[in-house]
């Protein structure tokens, strides 16, 4: 959000906002004065008041003036833009690293100790480096309150951004690069907390997944939220990009395998294969190729938790 009350949300806010201020200030000055000048001319030299035009073909002096002054002003603007941007490219060595996975259509965040969340948790006043990994198509990680944005390019090495959150609070985090059907739902939040609170939160890897974890089913649901299953698979039976999970456990369904239809029962083996090889058996009536394998991203235990949860979705 562009508002003064959170101007200290990150270390880049000052440089970016100053650039805006300089450019918008100069721009409004020119817009207003040129518009007023134009209106004055139109009024004053209206045919009724000024029936005969005075022919003036130009003035070299004026041309030079109005080339040089805008040149200097734009160089000034360039300078502010450059000065505000430069620090964004230099990551401090002691920055905490978080890996961000972007896929159609959600973000997930992996911390140095392996903890994984769907919301970005960060300590206040510590530099953070986000390593950006795009799993499928272009995405762009955008946190307006921090004034940062960086495209996530599939296959690109050294794809990163950094900043230092400077104010506690919850901020929006968007995907800014169009990435298909659910692009506008690809957003999450950044939760900035005091360093001590963050340290105890991150250290607690048993509590991987926020509060209220009492059963494998809750863990399963939380894992699925973190990796974004529900962007494409509903829990209430409504049809999204992929089939709904509602009442799916134990049902016999028609799938397409290598171009041929066959019947399968949704059991542990089927779910496991659908997660690791999503395009092997595609439920009839849905498109192939939209889901990517979660091989290497979800452990056996994660998948078991997911299976426990799916059994309960009715």
């Amino acid at each position, binding site marked *: 959000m562009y508002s003064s009350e959170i101007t200290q949300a990150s270390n880049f806010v000052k440089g970016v906002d100053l650039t805006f201020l300089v450019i918008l200030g100069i721009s409004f000055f*020119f817009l207003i004065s040129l518009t007023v000048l134009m209106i004055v001319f139109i009024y004053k030299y209206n045919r009724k008041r000024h029936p005969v035009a*005075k022919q003036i073909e130009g003035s070299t002096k004026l041309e030079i003036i*109005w080339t040089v002054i805008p040149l200097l002003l*734009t160089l000034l603007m360039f300078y502010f*833009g450059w000065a505000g941007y430069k620090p964004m490219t230099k990551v401090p060595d002691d920055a905490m690293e978080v890996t961000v996975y972007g896929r159609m259509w959600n973000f997930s965040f992996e911390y140095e100790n392996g903890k994984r969340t769907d919301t970005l948790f960060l300590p206040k006043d510590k530099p953070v480096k986000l390593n950006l990994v795009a799993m*499928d198509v272009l995405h762009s990680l955008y946190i307006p309150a921090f004034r*940062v944005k960086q495209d996530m390019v599939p296959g690109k090495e050294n794809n990163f951004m950094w900043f230092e959150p400077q104010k506690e609070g919850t901020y929006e985090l968007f*995907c800014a690069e169009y990435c298909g059907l659910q692009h*506008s739902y690809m957003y999450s939040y950044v939760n900035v907390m005091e360093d001590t609170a963050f340290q105890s939160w991150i250290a607690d890897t048993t509590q991987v997944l926020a509060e209220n974890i009492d059963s494998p089913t809750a863990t399963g649901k939380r894992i699925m939220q973190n990796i974004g299953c529900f962007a494409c698979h509903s829990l209430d039976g409504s049809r999204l990009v992929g089939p709904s999970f509602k009442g799916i456990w134990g049902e016999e369904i028609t799938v397409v395998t290598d171009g041929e239809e066959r019947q399968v029962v949704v059991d542990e083996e089927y779910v496991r294969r659908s997660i690791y090889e999503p395009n092997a058996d595609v439920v009839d009536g849905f498109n192939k*190729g939209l889901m990517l394998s979660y091989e290497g991203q979800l452990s056996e235990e994660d998948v078991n938790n997911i299976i426990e949860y799916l059994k309960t979705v009715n």
Partner: protein
Amino acid sequence: MQSTNAVNQANYLEYRGRFKGLFGWIFSTDHKRIGLLYLYSMAVMFSVGVLLGLAMKLELLAPGKTIMDAQDYNATFTVHGVIMIFMVVVPGLPAVFGNFLLPIMIGAKDVAFPKLNLLSWWFYVAGVFLVLAALLFGPGTPDTGWTFYAPYSFKTGTNMLPAIFGAFILGFSSILTGLNFLVTIHRMRCPGLKWSKLSLFVWTLYGTAWIQLLATPVVGITLVLVALERLFGVGIFDPALGGDPILYQHLFWIYSHPAVYIMILPAMGAISEIIPTFSQKHIFGYKAIIASTMAIAFVGYLVWGHHMFTAGMSGTAQYYFSLLTFLVAIPSAIKVFNWISTMYKGSINIQTPFYWAISFIFVFMIGGLSGLVLGALAANIYVHDTAFVVGHFHYIVFGGTGFAFFAAIHYWFPKIFGRMYDKAWANIGWIVFTIGFLTLYSPMFYLGMMGMPRRYYDYLEEFHGGNILSTFGSWILATGFIIIIVNLVRSARRGEKAEMNPWKGKTLEWTVPSPPPVENFDEIPEIAEDDGPYNY
């Protein structure tokens, strides 16, 4: 310049050649008829684009689903963009007014290659039909945005190939028109019409033609590569095959940024004709305006990277593109200063084209100044890919080119159709349209500054207010557009007969009858030493 040329010929609207009726038009090599063919086809496509735009704005009236679901919305903004960019503003003023006026303004009977000129229009129509076929048939309407960014454009299951091929053909139409105009301007100027006596509209067509000729092939090549990638998986852009998606962006913008100047330069040219005529005064800084036109045409090639500041270029490239982007702003500023100075001590006759011209200057200033925000690295990082960018380019492309187009049609209408429109209704149309425009696009700057990303089907509650206002503006704009179109269509058939030179202009087209005869001139005019296009 000189009042020549009584009529010994039928005018071009009534002339009957080898064919009658519709065939007499679609097989006519007369540059004036071809200009009108473009006008009518573009008017149809523009109306379709406007309807799609209205549907998008209606969808964004409230968060959540309003009238369509996400897939339809994504297809709608893609098709809106493809139609408006490739079929309306890229052909834009050169295809309509360039074709109609260029030969007359340089005292020629036609363009250098009349048959090639007709072929360009045929290519245009073929491209249009191919793209429309992509919408109606096959596995789904393209949903990639008009930029066709890789790798999404290879992954989507929608009907991309016909759309890409259509855009490719449209590119050829543009290249051939550019080539034709270049040769025409070099070879076919009437005796005495030195380069220093060319009207400014012709100068901008000249600069534009070079861009059309040199930049458009790049997008043609790029689109071919996308097609190869989709068909055979050659792996140029697809990271899964070792390709580079950022390379696609470079190739795309190497054309598509200069394309913005294809759109805006002729618009500036039209404004440079209208302001002197209605001020009854010599254009201020003729040579400075020409120099700035050529500077824009040249430097415009070198700034494409400013579309990619967040894409992950090297730091040095970022600084270079940012600096050059600021430099290309200066020639545009010079033009604005010269236009306003032209009004100084003029004798201003306020008529509809002049209203459009001054509102062009106003919205173009907003568009240009918001471009400075986007040219600055730090600010760009914040508002890139947000509604701010959407506001900015609609101010330039629709506010700039669109307003200039309406200025031009109201200025040259009596020449083209030989009839005058209803001036009162034209002014009402202008004011309603302008208010609608400002209401529609201004909130986008605010939404972008708040952090609302673009191409969003749905949005968070905090963005609601700005979107309501914007949607409301789209209805006002549409009302204005209907008033303008009804007035013009009605007047083309039933308006009062127009004089040869209703606005007291000095360029050559005002020396021939309205509407002009088939071959424009009975005798090729000669320009005397002390004549000039702005010697009032």
